[in-house]
């Protein structure tokens, strides 16, 4: 389907395009239904007065372990708005998502999982949330734990909170693979992201206008008795990736500790010197000078490590593609704002 936007003006209307991106690993049993649901939302947009539509759906095959590719090729024949990209090997969800995003043309991009845990029916509400809150990203957030398993859901939340504290990034807890992102920002983040980057952390380099929408999410695989694609090992892998993509305050904490120790050592040194000059005897010989020297050189070492890691952090982030600046155009949002009520009820 071709979209024919013209200039934004009083006389002409601009059709906003939503691109859907879905990494595929083992979606053989879900892809047909998923496509039907996307098509359904697409039809609803077309039938409504809102100047927005789903222009394309990009499925990225990331070394799928089942017949997902055959299913997608069949769907591609039936729907001209479906695009299928096959990666040469399994690069992982974030890389596959970035690859899919780099094949889109949409003003807004929705990323979702293959297994209907993320239902396309929420796409209009995600967009409405972004427009009404003047945000660039809307994360879907589960109303209750998607895996319906206390340990799994609880561990996931705990690790996100820890990473959030360590990286000083308050949005970590909101990160979700079901997200709506402003197209230009999504593509910019995807184009700078390194091979080990965590996509949502990279998104944070471009915008802090993030909002959250509560939606229903269910791990249908588990409900149908299949093994969940979610494992503890994967969770740790995600955590590691998040950690290395971010500047952490661990190093800064070490630096602060070093500074504190330095000040303490100076204070102790002054105290000892004063005692010596005033002729006061100290109880344990050698203790005071030893304590002072240990504290002083220990703090200097901490400070040196802090400086070293700070430079390393800057170099790493630069290497990972963190931009100096990026500009964005949000002027088309006002047109969608006029149709916000329509979007919310779609």
């Amino acid at each position: 389907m071709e979209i024919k936007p013209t200039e934004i003006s009083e006389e002409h209307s601009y059709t906003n395009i939503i691109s859907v991106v879905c990494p595929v690993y083992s979606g053989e049993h879900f892809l047909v239904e998923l496509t039907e649901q996307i098509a359904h939302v697409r039809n609803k947009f077309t039938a409504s007065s809102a100047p927005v539509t789903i222009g394309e759906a990009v499925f990225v095959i990331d070394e799928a372990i089942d017949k997902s590719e055959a299913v997608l090729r069949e769907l591609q024949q039936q729907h001209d708005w479906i695009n299928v990209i096959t990666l040469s090997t399994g690069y992982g969800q974030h890389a596959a998502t970035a690859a899919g995003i780099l094949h889109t043309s949409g003003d807004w991009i929705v990323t979702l999982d293959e297994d209907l845990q993320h239902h396309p029916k929420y796409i209009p509400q995600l967009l409405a949330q972004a427009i009404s809150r003047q945000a660039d990203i809307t994360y879907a957030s589960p109303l209750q734990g998607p895996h319906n398993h206390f340990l799994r859901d609880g561990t996931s939340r705990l690790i996100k909170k820890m990473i959030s504290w360590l990286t000083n990034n308050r949005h970590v807890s909101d990160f979700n693979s079901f997200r709506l992102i402003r197209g230009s920002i999504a593509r910019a983040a995807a184009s700078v992201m390194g091979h080990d980057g965590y996509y949502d952390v990279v998104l944070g380099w471009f915008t802090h206008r993030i909002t959250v929408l509560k939606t229903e999410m269910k791990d249908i695989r588990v409900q149908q008795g299949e093994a969940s694609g979610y494992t503890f090992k994967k969770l740790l892998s995600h955590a590691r990736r998040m950690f290395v993509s971010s500047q952490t305050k661990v190093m800064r904490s070490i630096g602060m500790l070093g500074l504190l120790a330095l000040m303490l050592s100076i204070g102790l040194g002054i105290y000892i010197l004063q005692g010596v000059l005033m002729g006061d005897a100290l109880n344990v010989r050698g203790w005071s000078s030893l304590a002072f020297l240990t504290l002083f050189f220990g703090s200097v070492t901490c400070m040196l490590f802090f400086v070293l890691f700070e430079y390393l952090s800057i170099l790493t982030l630069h290497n990972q593609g963190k931009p100096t600046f990026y500009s964005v155009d949000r002027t088309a949002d006002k047109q969608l704002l006029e149709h916000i009520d329509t979007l919310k009820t779609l």
Partner: protein
Amino acid sequence: MNLFCQRESLSAGPHPAVMVIGSGLIGSEIIRSLESDHYQLVYRSKLRWHHRSELDAQCRLFFSEVASLQLSQITVIWAAGKASFTSSSAETAREYEDFQTILKTLSSYFQSHSIPVHVILMSSAGGLFEGRRLVGQASEPLPLRPYGQLKLDQEQFVSDLEGVDQHLHLRLTSVYGKISPRNRMGLIPTLLYNGLQNRVSYIIGRQDTIRDYVYAGDVGRAVVQCIYTLPEIERRSLILGSSKPSSLLEVQQCVESIIQRKLFVNYTAEKNSSSITFSEPLNFPFLVNDAMHTNISKIYHAFAGHR
């Protein structure tokens, strides 16, 4: 005008020939691909475009030189043209007139000698579909400026031209190729060249402007394939591109990673800086390499090797 015949067929009676008009970025790649495919240059004549009143005569001189060749069929590939996005109506009108003159002369000559004529016209997807996204093969062109209208007129002219047995319009997306400082260069070779010189590149567009970029080498190979399969191609107009939309930021990042230097870029958002993209699948019958990084590396190393 460059006339090619296949080497092994030259001495074997009537044989097909290929005439390439234009030897700029695209024309030179088509010529390179023909030579790789065992075609031999039989005759070359440089058209003197500034002597417009003599174009007809120049063509006739060309015919007299090649009259001895026994041609069973000729494929004329039009890859010439000076007009660009910023050309005025007067400039495009002049170019259209020259185009008509040459093609009419060619077609009537070959028709009078009972030589079947096929025409492959290098058109412009950007000119025809400016400001549009997710354009498909069946999309109707809607040019917004004289350049786009020129391309549409050229396509219509070829479709209606008497004496042409088969024709194909190849609508090229944004083509990038070798660095050639003396000639007009597109975005990517300009970024490469200026980047190596530590100069500022002035780009009409924004970091998030998205376009479809296709490598000139791939275009050349695809055109040569079209020569063989022309009768089998169902559509008369085909978009030739990579189908992968790339933002200017992505292109900039790619070039920086290849030349290992920061680029100094000044972006200017103007009316002709809108995004133009094309939907999958384009169903183009020939493989078009969309590995931009590989192609840009090729361009860079070819240039660096000659410095």
